[in-house]
């Protein structure tokens, strides 16, 4: 047997606070600020939210469709209060909620089952076979159950997992590199002249302290790269101008994923070989809906004597199909300091009805590969994988990829 607590009696008489709240809300707009002064408002807001009756937007309470409907209906909790008042019991799930809210309490020690009916199954009931003679108390499957949120992957990282799986299945090996990088790998080894505008304070973040690392370990390669810049190499004329080893050692935050490819090619690279990386990169940009100051690049290279413009276009087309599901792609000339020829790959977005530029790629210049000791053509690309995900999931604000909003994280669908 159950009885109502003093609070329960009060609610039975005056109505549930959450119900009173939505009734009031139907008559006048309310903000969280205004509610602060009203007694018991916290309980009311919390339950009204749990029931999905209201939403809070920028501090203002908004009645949902569900809330509007609830105003004129008796809820299971209200019904429960009435039943306990009348007959000392109600359905099990409602009892649980009422007890949890301290609106009702048991009048004597609770038993797992009465002789008349079975509520919660217990080992005693199961083993005693009591269920053969005593009926089960009917439960209401429509009664509301508490909301739970499972642990799960962050949605954007889950997407990156898919991309990585796809690439490894195609035959690409993952490569890695540091976020704080020597200018040598971030720029010099990529045949970006030392006075290139993208090497200035607007193109990359510089480390305040220590300002310099060391390129000593790469002495012979630095010499090659210097030669390629100043005098030319592998049939190229070079940039001329200056080249300082000190500048090579200047520390920056990796501003392009290609730095990782340079490290890979200089190391134990296999020919033929195919490599990729999802690289966190940093650039001094103001953060807004379409720009982040750190972003991910899907970077990759393929080294093979057969690499040429047509096989590059073929690979890009394959990517577009795998990642976006469309084979409607086209290519336009582009310019990147490290590749020649360079292309911009686009795919047709049926929903947006437009071409999306998303696949900058090319074949590394011989002046880039030769100093690193690579003698086969190398195709390379660096996709804005953040934008790719935004387009795929129809996300308008890039900041949502790194969201702090638990609701967004919890509501994200896994399928």
């Amino acid at each position: 047997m159950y009885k109502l607590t003093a609070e329960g009696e009060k609610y039975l008489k005056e109505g549930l606070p959450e119900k009173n709240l939505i009734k009031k809300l139907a008559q006048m707009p309310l903000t969280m600020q205004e509610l602060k002064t009203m007694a018991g408002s916290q309980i009311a807001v919390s339950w009204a939210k749990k029931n999905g009756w209201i939403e809070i937007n920028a501090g203002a309470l908004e009645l949902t469709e569900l809330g509007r409907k609830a105003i004129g209906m008796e809820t299971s909790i209200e019904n429960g209060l009435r039943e306990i008042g009348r007959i000392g019991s109600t359905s099990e799930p409602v009892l649980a909620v009422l007890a949890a809210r301290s609106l009702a309490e048991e009048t004597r020690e609770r038993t797992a089952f009465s002789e008349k009916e079975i509520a919660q199954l217990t080992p005693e009931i199961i083993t005693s076979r009591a269920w053969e003679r005593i009926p089960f108390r009917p439960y209401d499957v429509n009664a509301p159950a508490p909301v739970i949120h499972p642990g799960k992957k962050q949605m954007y990282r889950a997407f990156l997992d898919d991309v990585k799986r796809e690439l490894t299945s195609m035959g690409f090996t993952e490569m890695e590199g540091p976020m704080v990088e020597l200018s040598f790998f971030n720029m010099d080894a990529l045949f970006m002249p030392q006075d290139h505008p993208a090497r200035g304070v607007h193109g990359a973040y510089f480390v305040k302290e220590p300002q310099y690392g060391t390129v000593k370990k790469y002495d012979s390669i630095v010499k090659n790269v210097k030669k390629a810049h100043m005098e030319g190499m592998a049939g190229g004329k070079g940039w001329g101008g200056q080249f300082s080893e000190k500048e090579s050692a200047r520390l920056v935050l990796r501003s392009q994923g290609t730095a990782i490819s340079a490290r890979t090619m200089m190391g134990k690279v296999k020919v033929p070989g195919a490599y990729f990386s999802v690289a966190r990169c940093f650039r001094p940009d103001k953060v807004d809906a379409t720009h982040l100051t750190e972003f991910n690049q899907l970077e990759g290279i393929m080294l093979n004597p057969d690499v040429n413009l047509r096989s590059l276009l073929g690979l890009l087309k394959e990517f577009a199909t795998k990642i976006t599901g469309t084979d409607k792609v086209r290519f336009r000339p582009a310019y990147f300091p490290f590749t020649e020829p360079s292309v911009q790959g686009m795919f047709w977005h049926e929903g947006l009805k437009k071409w999306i530029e998303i696949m900058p790629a090319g074949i590394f210049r011989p002046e880039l590969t030769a100093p690193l000791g690579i003698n086969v053509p190398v195709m390379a690309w660096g996709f804005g994988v953040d934008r790719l995900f935004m387009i795929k999931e129809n996300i308008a604000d890039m900041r949502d990829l790194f969201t702090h909003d638990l609701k967004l994280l919890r509501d994200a669908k896994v399928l």
Partner: protein
Amino acid sequence: MPTIDVSLNDLEKLTGKKLPRDVEGLNNVLQFAKSEVERLEGDELAISVEDGNRLDLWCVEGIARELKGALGTESGMAEYIIVDSNYAVSVDRELEKTRPFIACAVVKGVKLSEQILKQLMQQQEKIDGTYGRDRKRSSIGLYDVDKIKWPLKYTVTKSGENAFVPLGFDKAMTPGEILELHPKGKEYGKLLDGFKSYPIFKDADGKVLSFPPIINSNDIGKVTSGTKNVLVEVTGTDWKTVRTVLLVVAMSLADRGGKLHSVKIEYQFKMPDGPTTVKTPDTKPEEMTIMQDDVNNLLGIELGAAEMEELLKKGRYDAAAEGEVVKVFVPPYRTDVMHAVDIIEDIAIKKGFDSFAPVTPQMPTIGSLTKLDLATSRIREVCIGLGCQEALTFVLTNKKNLFERMGTEENNVIELENPVSSEFSCMRSKLLPGLFQLLSANKHRDFPQNVFEIGDCVVPDAAEENGVRQTRRLAILMSHDKANLTGIRSVTEALLRNFGATFEIKKTSHPSFIESRCGEIKIGGHLAGIFGEIHPKILRNWDLDLPVTAIEIELDALKKF
């Protein structure tokens, strides 16, 4: 990449061919000039030039020049006749160490309209800003020839002499005053830092034309609509750049109907390529050779010599095939051509990228993920199994979040020299502050709130070639009304057991945690992490009202990857 505003009618007139009036159609044509439509509104067309090295394309005349080749109005190298003349400029010896180079051209009979003037200014701005490295490597000046007394002097001045009225002002100022007071002086003055004397450009009467690379004279140093004869001057620190920029500007004016006249430059010091007296502009092409096989191998096609020749001429080169070799004459403004591959790309562009049938490459390799990535995935699974929501936050943060709000002393952090905002001014050395930021944004959401992140952090380390040690870390925050030490210790042990780690847990104290409710994790004898109940003082720093327990572990300590 430079974006230039042009009039579509003007472009059409200069190209001499009817152009499409829709974006799609225009893009199909503009791709031959490595460009695309940025915006089209009636006659107003904004073109994005997708090449940071093709300064010849950063003006409507240059795009038209390229399109004339692609659309067949003209073929081969664009021809410019240069009338030999007696115009002369002498260059002072003292400039050798500061801003040594100057190149000039006189363009006669050009009749500047407002529209042409606007295009010229735009070209000047784009080239000075990027190719000219913000006027350091080169800067352009334009003058009315009819107001100048020849010969001219590119010489030096002290900061307090040679006062003149600069553009936009109405009183005479010395170079020193200009650097201090004139907006352009303030903007570009840094280019003259450390110079004992400043460059100055004067005519035969000693009147100042300009104070390169800062500002022209308001008197004889400007062109207006109606100016018929123009002097183009480029000064700078790199001879090749200076010559190239001059030629590109002179060609634009010639394309507007002007006649080019040479200017003799007499240097009083050694020049990079020999003679001290040079005539500018110089239109002599450079000869290069490409192998037919190289072209076909790089593009994956089979072109014959005649086709290559034709495509090269479409690209405004001159070319002559001789057996396996194609001799290519590269126009002197194409400084972007540094290797045969640059010419080969032009062949591909002029052939049209749409004409290349993609071939799926053979992949004779077996793919794999890094050990680090595989281990991270396994660890994520355990965290998710413990009921935690994964988070992904920024690597960039600030010292307030990293230290002040966590109640810890400032130490060991990589700061940015050029942050754009104070919010993102250093790199994270720990993950927990990022997760606290997340929690504090979710006070009104359902509890329990259990979140985790696995990510990379950095700390300074002089022993590393890049000055930092980068580690992969795991952090968990659990917040609900019953969160306590026992609960988080269970989670910590569950994690470490599942990682297969040999670990010990010891009592420790830490300013972020409640004294006696905080443990340190040692793996293989080394301090690898911390866990416990967060101190209410810290919770208030993050504006949190429910108990929070936390773990942070450096995963590298596991020595499993």
